């Protein structure tokens, strides 16, 4: 293999699995260390700069970082990254004086944002302090979009939304709330310098089955029903509730039902338990609230009597993998089953809806009715119009919307300056030695043996009694510290300097994970088999040195399960190994 080019930012960025997996590339280990030090406000600001909604995401994020966490590969469960973010948000001292100021002088450019959800708010967060006049339109009376309308209050208290949305509205965007944009063509005529569409995927899919019309009074579309609950329009539901669908919205629906009078609430899903789209922890939370999840049942009809819903009939199926490797659900031939209920919540997916975008204003749509949007610049085929969040590529989640918002803001800024919108600014990268003394590092390199800590919950009876009462109590400072200590500091990189190595094997002998090998060079597949421990995880890179002076062998380090404990550097007599902090900061619009 060729020597690894550690100058390329991607190399060490990939080693920081959590940051690499995060759509916004939040420097996770950096803020987790701050939490361990009790620097909650500092930790909050690292997050705020990167993901804009630390308190909200610390409760609701889909956490792509956690399955990526190296802890999963070296012991069992990931660091509770998401809930640590909440520790920072809950315990921080006031941070208002650390926020950017509204621009002193406008730069004369006007940007319209359609929808006041996370994507638009991120665009405003980046552009407003630069002097842009950002006007945010939303049909609702309060900003926040799906954060406010769809996420139940028992998961996310309104005060947290108000606080973090308030930080953005405080930057000076013009909030045009209660104004639904009915025509993009009309908006274009108002001569904005750019328009950002961040209207989400606002339409819940329906199930057009027999009985749907007749029993309509007791069949509700999940996201619409959740938003009615959020805004206080709905406060009760029947005693027996069936939730159709296996995603996170279904989980929110069933748990909300339990709090509004639903005593016998069931989730019934077409697919198997493991194939459900809901995050594992959301399924766990639902089951904890005595909600059974029934799988492999395809709904066939709504049953009704005298115009009133009586239940749903299902056909039992099983999953069969055909020759092409596709999973299909086929009936197992058993009789249909009937589940009686008083209300049904349909949470079988969301879709985009753009009835308000004319098809003759230069915005191309694909065969599925989605706008054609660049994955790099988020520009549509109309150079003035940008998309982001669920409006761009269909339903995802908040952290993706934030990442899109940052990228779209860069494009809008470049567009307004007449520059190529496809160009992305390079990230800011530093790599600094953490050596403080002979065996002293500026990070805590002793690896914690603690298992993942559980977030304490409010007693079930109390939690189910009030739809607005937050269920999770969050880690207290002490548990937060111990959970933070589980972080392996994967951003403190092992950096190898060939000319200093005397091939004494000290690093090989001390490495607890058998990551390091000195051997004859060879092709990657061959090297992976020949290491101290075989490197079978091809998704993780091998760090290969140039040939060494003494023997001509190369040093090969398998990054896969390295604990970043720094023992290789501690045992190295010549300083050929050093532990250096890799900090990658995404560049946002300001510096673009």
């Amino acid at each position, binding site marked *: 293999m060729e020597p690894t080019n550690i100058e390329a930012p991607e190399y060490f960025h990939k080693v920081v699995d959590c940051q690499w997996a995060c759509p916004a590339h939040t420097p996770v280990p950096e803020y987790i260390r701050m939490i361990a030090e009790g620097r909650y406000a500092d930790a909050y600001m690292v997050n705020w700069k990167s993901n804009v909604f630390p308190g909200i995401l610390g409760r609701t994020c889909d956490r792509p970082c956690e399955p990526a966490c190296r802890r999963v*590969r070296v012991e069992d469960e990931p660091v509770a990254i998401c809930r640590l973010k909440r520790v920072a948000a809950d315990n921080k001292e006031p941070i208002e004086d650390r926020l950017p100021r509204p621009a002193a002088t406008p730069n004369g450019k006007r940007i319209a944002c359609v929808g006041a959800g996370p994507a638009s708010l991120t665009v405003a967060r980046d552009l407003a302090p630069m002097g842009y006049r950002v006007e945010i339109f939303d049909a609702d009376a309060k900003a926040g979009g799906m954060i406010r309308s769809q996420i139940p209050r028992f998961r996310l208290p309104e005060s947290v939304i108000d606080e973090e949305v308030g930080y953005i509205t405080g930057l000076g965007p013009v909030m045009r709330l209660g104004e639904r944009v009915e025509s993009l063509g009309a908006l274009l005529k108002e001569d904005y310098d750019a328009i950002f569409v961040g209207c989400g995927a606002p339409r819940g899919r329906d199930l057009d089955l027999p009985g749907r019309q007749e029993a309509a009074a007791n069949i509700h579309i999940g996201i619409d029903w959740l938003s009615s609950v959020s805004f206080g329009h709905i406060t009760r539901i029947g005693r027996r509730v069936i939730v159709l669908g296996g995603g996170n919205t279904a989980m929110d629906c069933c748990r909300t039902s339990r709090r509004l009078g639903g005593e016998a609430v069931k989730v019934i899903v077409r697919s198997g338990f493991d194939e459900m789209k809901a995050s594992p922890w959301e399924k766990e939370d639902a089951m904890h609230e005595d909600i059974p999840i029934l799988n492999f049942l395809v709904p066939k009809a709504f049953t009704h009597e005298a115009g009133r819903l009586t239940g749903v009939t299902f056909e039992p199926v099983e999953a069969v993998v055909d020759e092409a490797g596709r999973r299909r659900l086929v009936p197992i031939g058993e009789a249909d089953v009937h589940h009686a209920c008083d209300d049904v919540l349909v949470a079988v997916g969301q879709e985009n809806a753009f009835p308000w975008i004319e098809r003759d204003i230069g915005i191309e749509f694909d065969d599925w009715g989605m706008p054609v949007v660049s994955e790099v610049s988020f520009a549509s085929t109309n150079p003035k119009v940008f998309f982001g969040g669920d409006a761009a590529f269909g339903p995802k989640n908040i952290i993706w919307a934030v990442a899109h918002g940052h990228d779209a803001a860069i494009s809008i800024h470049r567009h307004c300056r007449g520059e190529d919108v496809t160009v992305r600014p390079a990230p800011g990268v530093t790599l600094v030695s953490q050596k403080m003394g002979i065996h002293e590092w500026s990070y805590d390199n002793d690896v914690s043996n603690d298992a993942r800590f559980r977030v304490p919950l409010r007693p079930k009876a109390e939690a189910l009694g009030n739809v607005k009462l937050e269920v999770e109590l969050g880690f207290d400072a002490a548990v937060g510290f111990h959970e933070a200590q589980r972080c392996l500091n994967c951003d403190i990189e092992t950096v190898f300097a060939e000319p200093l190595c005397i091939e*004494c094997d*000290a690093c090989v002998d*001390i490495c*607890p994970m*058998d990551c390091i090998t000195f051997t004859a060079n060879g092709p990657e597949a061959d090297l992976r088999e020949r290491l101290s*421990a075989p490197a*079978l995880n091809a998704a993780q890179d091998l760090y290969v040195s140039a040939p060494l002076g003494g023997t001509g062998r190369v040093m090969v380090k398998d990054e896969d399960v390295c604990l970043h404990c720094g023992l290789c550097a*501690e*045992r190295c007599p010549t300083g050929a190994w050093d532990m250096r902090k890799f900090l990658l900061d995404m560049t946002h619009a300001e510096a673009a």
Partner: protein
Amino acid sequence: MTYITKPRLHHPLLQPNALGFTRRDYEGKVSTLCAGCGHDSISAAIIQACFDLDLPPHRLAKLSGIGCSSKTPDYFLGGAHGFNSVHGRMPSVLTGANLANRELIYLGVSGDGDSASIGLGQFAHAMRRGVNMTYIVENNGVYGLTKGQFSATSDKGSKSKKGVVNHDQPIELVGLALQLGASFVARGFSGDKAQLVPLIKAAIGHKGAAFIDVISPCVQFNNHPGSTKSFDYVREHNAAVNRLDVIAPRKEIVVDYEPGSVERVAQHDGSVLTLRKLAADYDPTDRAAAITHLQAHQAIGEIVTGLLYVDPAARDLHDYLGTVETPLNRLGDAELTPGARALAAINQSLR
């Protein structure tokens, strides 16, 4: 020295041996030697060898004297018996232990100061008596604990870190062991575990006095240009006579070598040593030829390594003395006080 202990976590694919132990179970406390010390590599090689041999750690006794090398038994096989003796006196303590209980596996760990200076006499007598042990000298040619004076194994003409030239003749422990009748003699290098681990495995399987001289560079005081025990010097002047594979008892020998290139030696414990020849016509069962080869190569500045001599039919001290097979701590009153009639019989035989 290291301040944090080695994390308990290990590679997910770390394999257990026949006893269900992983290699990590053969470790000891974290080393307090200087970072990069060759001795730590030797400890790692001992760990690997004992793991490979499926040795129950509590069946091994590790004994040492004084010095950097003699600290190392604390850093491997935490579950084994240990004895840190007076300077240079490891061989006699070990001999005593071995006479008292021949069922344990004895590993003596010593250094060039401990064995070639203060303990030279002890070393000599353990070898000539054929004490059943593995005697490892971690040889760095320097007194590291007292800041780098020449030791008795420093080569004539080699330089200290400050540039002082050594004028004394070195004690060649390998040559001495051969002359004194050790029945297994080898030399390894801490920087080459592929060579060292099989040597240790073979020595542990050998019945009789097995001696391994391991050149172990002192990174602090003896790893500079002018040293003859530095990583670079040893790598450049290493003249290995063979490459050894140890095949465990009852394992089928499947490796095919070119005819004539390999010698097989069956050991007392049933293991088979497969020796791939590197030096033409080197015969590791010929003691006199080994001494000649050693001296010839020493004269041209080469360091001869590998398995230099083995006598697979060797006998040990217990055989010579005809001692009781049962460990002394398991002998009961019946054996220890055979009574007046037995005494009378002995007295009668002496009349």
